[in-house]
């Protein structure tokens, strides 16, 4: 079945350092979504990428969709303590039926002030 993997699992950074999480799918994706879950909270939608090679920015966050539409990355510039949380990528599962998503395992970001 479809697998979505993320690396690293955990990342400790000093405040002000950059951070990147990578997402890889075993199958080609029609789109990829990114979510952030704060400790004790629920996943919150960040963005969707649809086009091959697409790059989108949200302030200090840069999202990229690979040319083959099987991988994606999220890069945070100059991390802040408010960036703490787990970042998940997700792609359509079961052929996209019912808009169901398969989530990656997440990357947990910890920021030292």
């Amino acid at each position, binding site marked *: 079945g479809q697998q979505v993997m993320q690396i690293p699992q955990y990342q400790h950074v000093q405040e002000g350092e950059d951070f990147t999480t990578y997402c890889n799918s075993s199958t080609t994706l029609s*789109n990829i*979504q990114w*979510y952030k*879950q704060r400790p004790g*909270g*629920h*996943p*919150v*939608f960040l963005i*969707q990428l649809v086009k091959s090679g697409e790059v989108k920015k949200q302030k200090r966050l840069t999202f990229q969709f690979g040319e083959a539409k099987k991988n994606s990355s999220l890069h945070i510039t100059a991390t802040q303590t408010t960036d703490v949380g*787990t970042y*998940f990528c*997700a792609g359509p*599962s*079961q052929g996209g*039926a*019912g*808009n*169901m*998503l*398969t*989530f990656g*395992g*997440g990357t*947990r970001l910890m920021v030292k002030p």
Partner: protein
Amino acid sequence: DTAVSQTPKYLVTQMGNDKSIKCEQNLGHDTMYWYKQDSKKFLKIMFSYNNKELIINETVPNRFSPKSPDKAHLNLHINSLELGDSAVYFCASSQKAAQYFGPGTRLTVT
């Protein structure tokens, strides 16, 4: 106003019991979902429900059943609870791509 709400927030019960978790969304979305998040934070889709069409993740035991009394609600019923059912269960809804998650229900089976 809370967009997606779930009750209860915490649920502690014994093995073998039957329990329900309620979910309501006031966003007017057409599709609702249930996810299970285990202790390692893995998020797994369980069900998708849209206009009476139910799509089930084949790995979900048939002890789990969603019930939708109307478009704004998708409740989760669990029969014969097992220790392995302990997890956080999230309800979500969507109209297009973005899924909006509820605050979660932490289920502990003893």
